[in-house]
Every structure is written in structure tokens, then in C-alpha cells.
């Protein structure tokens, strides 16, 4: 990967990662890297394997083969908790919110602060509420529905809760799976600004998107997947929008980008 800042240690290095569901090769020997302070766009059609690849990094799926190095260390990443411990946070496409619970409960879901009482863990609901309010209001100062079940929030508000959750735990690696899918233009701009700010803090971001406009504006590099395979990857300036579209639709790589196993030149 000659165009990358190779003098620095990558945050994430995925090598020949493989995952099958039954007989379907969802992700076939895909390589990917992510450096501090950069945004790598992961592009492809529905079912191209983008989300599956990212879910393996998030610890939500276990991989069948391949290595993942995080901060230079090989890691199994078999549970979301392991990913959290390595500073990997994910904004899932589905948002992963329990709709019957309120924003504060969702923000800390699975990581509640509290005290051990015998075999149980007593939740510190006060701290949760205070910190959730702070975290969410950093993104949206008008948000005051901390104790309303998430099902009663608007699409944008729900997205805000999901984003606040990822940021609250000080991610060093952030996976954003279609983060603007449920958002209006104003909130979309908020997310764009946010990504710029996070980059400045040296956080590495994998951005899954199908909106090429978004990607060209925000990302530093891109990778295209098709049928579970890597079509190719390169810097944003290496290919124009039409060429990227050609990669997504036909798997056709222009000479200016590095072709992967799934790309035709």
C-alpha cells in the first residue's frame, strides 16, 4: 500500500479475513488497513460483505479464517467486549438500540457503571443519566429526552444516541455503518463535521456508505467490495466518481487503483 503513511503503525490491519454463512462466502480473504486520523470508506452494494467485514472487527461476528491486528497486536476479537477493550466502537446500521429502554440505558447498555452485590451488579443510574445527558448534548444541545424509551424518539434522535454511545467510550477506532441513513440534511452535516473533528483527534474511522458524494468529501482512502471480495482500494484522488461506480457495479478497476482479488483490470 504505497500511498499510505507506512512510517506509522496502523491502528487496524486485517489480513485475508474470511467468513462464510452456510455455503455463502460472505467475506472472502479480504485485506484492510486503517491508520490514525484517517477515514477509510468501505463501499459496495447490499450484500457485498461490507457490514460482515466490519462486524468481525466489532467483535459481533467471529471470523472463520484470517488475522486481525489492532494496535500491532494480533487479537481474536470474538466478542463485542473485546473490541470495546481495544478502543473499537461501532455505530451499527441498525443502531443497535433496545427500543423499550431509554437513551441513558442504551448509552451504557452492556457497560453499566455500578457496584457488585453478590452475584449481581447494581447499576449507578444517577451517573448513567448525568453522563448520558452530557454525551448526547455535546452532539445535540436541544436533546432532553434522556428518560424516554427510544421507540418514542425520532430517527435523527435515535441516531444521535447511537453516535453518542460510540463517542462516550473514547473510541480510537470507529466503525460507522451508514451513519447518515436516517438523517436529514442538517443532521448529515453535523455528522460530517463530527468526522472531521474526530480525524483531528487522530481517531481512525471506517465509514460504510453507499453515498459516493459523502465518501468523496469525507474519506481519505476507499475500498470497494463485491460478492464478498475486495475489488480494489486506493486514495480518494486516485479515481473519479464514475470509476468508483464502475468498481462497485462491475468490479472493474481503473489502472490508478490497487486491484484486489475480486477486481478486473
Amino acid at each position, binding site marked *: 500500500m504505497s500511498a499510505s503513511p507506512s512510517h506509522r503503525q496502523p491502528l487496524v490491519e486485517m489480513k485475508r479475513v474470511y467468513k462464510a454463512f452456510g455455503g455463502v462466502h460472505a467475506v472472502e480473504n479480504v485485506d484492510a488497513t486503517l491508520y490514525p486520523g484517517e477515514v477509510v470508506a468501505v463501499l459496495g452494494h447490499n450484500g457485498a460483505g461490507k457490514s460482515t467485514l466490519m462486524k468481525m472487527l466489532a467483535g459481533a461476528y467471529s471470523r472463520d479464517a484470517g488475522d486481525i491486528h489492532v494496535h500491532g497486536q494480533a487479537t481474536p476479537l470474538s466478542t463485542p467486549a473485546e473490541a470495546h477493550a481495544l478502543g473499537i466502537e461501532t455505530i451499527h446500521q441498525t443502531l443497535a438500540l*433496545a*427500543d423499550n*429502554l431509554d437513551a441513558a*440505558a442504551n448509552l451504557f447498555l452492556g457497560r*453499566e457503571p455500578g457496584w457488585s452485590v453478590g452475584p*449481581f451488579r*447494581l*447499576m449507578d443510574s*444517577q451517573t448513567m443519566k448525568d453522563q448520558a445527558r452530557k454525551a448526547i448534548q455535546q452532539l445535540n444541545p436541544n436533546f432532553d429526552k434522556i428518560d424516554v424509551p427510544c421507540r418514542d424518539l425520532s430517527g435523527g434522535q435515535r441516531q444521535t444516541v447511537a453516535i453518542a454511545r460510540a463517542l462516550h467510550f473514547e473510541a480510537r477506532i470507529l466503525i460507522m455503518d451508514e451513519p447518515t441513513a436516517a438523517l436529514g440534511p442538517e443532521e448529515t452535516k453535523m455528522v460530517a463535521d463530527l468526522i472531521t473533528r474526530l480525524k483531528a483527534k487522530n481517531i481512525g474511522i471506517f465509514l460504510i456508505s453507499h453515498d459516493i458524494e459523502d465518501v468523496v468529501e469525507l474519506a481519505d482512502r476507499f475500498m470497494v467490495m463485491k460478492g464478498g471480495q475486495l475489488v480494489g482500494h486506493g486514495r480518494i484522488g486516485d479515481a473519479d466518481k464514475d470509476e468508483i461506480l464502475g468498481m462497485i457495479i462491475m468490479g472493474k478497476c481503473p489502472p490508478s487503483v490497487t486491484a484486489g482479488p475480486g477486481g478486473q483490470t
Partner: protein
Amino acid sequence: MFKSILSARMLSLLSLLVLIAVVFHVLSGGLFLTPRNLYNLVVQTSVVAVMATGMTLVIITRNIDLSVGSALGLVGMVIALFQIELFPAEAAWNWPLSAAIGIACGALIGAWNGAWIAFGGIPSFVVTLGGLLIFRGLAFETAQGRTLAPFQETYQVFGGGLNGALGEAVSWWVLVVVLALYAAGEFFIHRRQIRIGHALPLILRALRMAMVAILAIGFVFVMNAYDRPRTDIGRGVPIPALILLVTVLVMEFIARFTTFGRYAYAIGGDVDAARLVGIPTRKTVFWIYVLMGVLAAVAAVIATARLNAGTSSTGELLELSVIAAAVIGGVSLLGGRGTVSGAVIGAVIIQSLDSGMVLVGASSSVRMIAIGVILTLAVYIDKRLSKEA
């Protein structure tokens, strides 16, 4: 304003309860609201309500347990076998040990259900339907269908029978302690709410505390008014009611304040989300079934002690009352919603209906029809309520 002391659902449940009491009191010619009937109602309710607190967590995770009646039957037979046949009849350690074996047996039953459901990936409906048959069959095999009796006298106390109550004086003292703890709790919450800046107005809080106090005092008063035979010594609060009180407090605590309870709600709300954020969904479901098994065993202690015999048919069809209690109490079969105390009130409603119909001389077939209709109506109303919410 009233909503802040009592939720709309709770209010409608309590109104329904009052309605049932008044209607049956009139229809039975004044037999329903008597100390004798209410005492027995409390004891009967305890068996169902103890299990309903566990069923609440089970249903909240969008599962079901059809085997609790059979589990109760099997545990009852195991306790009877040890206490009456295997252990020396006069030994002081007999009843505590045999009861402990029964509780452990309940935990094992729960672990059996939970393991197949959580780790085997089999729908809970199927696993516990199988359990319903397996445990009932085992209950029969335990003593080849014989009825085992009698239990040790100390053990019979758990059934709320002749010696199974606290007596007048102790009942009042227990009431004083419970109310003092309750007041301290309200005070603690009030101070905390003031710190975050949105406290319930003092007058409303006082009103709520007064309501609870009046209900509690009234309860002890009625229980004390039921005299021991041929005396004017009141029985007092039955031991099963005390067991139920402790169970409800523990289960409310687990459901509302621990991560375990929170994960149950999250699993019922959206199991995929729960998995994605790293909640140990399988482990949580497994332990909920173990807890359910333990509670079925506690109910078995009350039921067998009350009957003073172990029979393999004890608890038949009880799973339906338990599930109905939870559902009537507002626990949604779609998962993710409901409270322990709601389920307990549901149990009181079911048992009141049943006992009321017995008092007016309804046959068991008519009682079955009525409970079935009420259950269907409850789910329908619940569905409407949650759509509007």
C-alpha cells in the same frame, strides 16, 4: 398529577381488584370480604405470585415457561421423599435439609430448561412443553404415584396452616419494621431526587406513603381478625405472605436495579441489539430459567406444606395461572415490558376471581371458562394499551 404516584396500568388493575372483591362479596352474601376468606386467599395467592415474579423475567426476555406447574410437583415430591421416607422423622435437621434439596432440585430443573433454550437454541415453548411432561412424569416416578404424608410439624408452618402465621403481636412488629424501612427508602429516594432537581412534590409523596401505610395496616388488621379455631386469638400474617413479600422485594430489586434485570429487558426489546452491544444474552437467559426453577421450588414448599402431603399431581395446570397472572399484570408476551409487582397484582386478581367463584358455588368448569375469558380479554386490553402508549 395522580399519574406520578400510580401508573395508569396499576390504577386500572387495582380498580379491577376492588370491583371483583365488591361484586363477589355481594353475590356470595357477604362471604368474600371476611378475614377467613382473605387469609386463605393470601395463602393461595402466594404460591402463584412467587412463581409469577420469575415468570415476569422469563416473559420479558420474550420466552415462556410452561413447565412451572410440573416443576412444582416434582420438587414437592422430592422434598416429601426425603423428609418423609428417607430422613429420620424426628431429626431436627430433616426439614431444612430436605427443603434445601428441593430448592437445589428446582435450580437443576431451571438449568435443564435454560440450557436447552439458551445454548441449544430450541424455542422455549418446545423445551418447557417437554419439561411439563418430563417433570410431571418424574414426580410420579419419585414415589410410584403414592401420596406421601405427613410432613414435619415445623415444615407445615410454611403452608400458613394452623401454626403457619406470625401471631397478632409479631405481625404488628413486623409491620412496624417494614413500614419504617419503606419510609426510610422513600426518604432516601426523595433526597436523591432533590439533588438532581426533579423531586416528586412532598405532598404527593406523603399521599403515596399514607396509601401504602393504610393498606399495610389494614392487611395486618384483617389477618389478625382471623381467629384460631375455638379461641379469640388472632392468627396474624401467614408465613407464605412473608415469603412472598421477601420474594417480591428481591425480584423487584433484580429487575429494576441490577444489570441482570436490565439485560432481560434489553433482550426482550431487541435481541440483536443486545448481542451487538456485547450483552451475554445466552448466559442471561440461562440464569433467568435457573431463577425461575428456584422460585418454583419455593412455591413447592408453600404448596406441599399447606397440603401437608406430597402428591404427584400437585401444581397441575398451575403454569396457566402463573402465566395469566403475569399477562394480566401487564407483562407483554412480545417481550421487553412488564413489572414484577404488576405480575403479583395479576396473581391476586386471578386468585380472587377463582376464590370468589368458589364462594358463589360456581362449578370448576364455569371457573375455567371465566379465567380463560379474562385471560383473553387481558391480552386484548394489553395490546390496545401498548398501541396507544
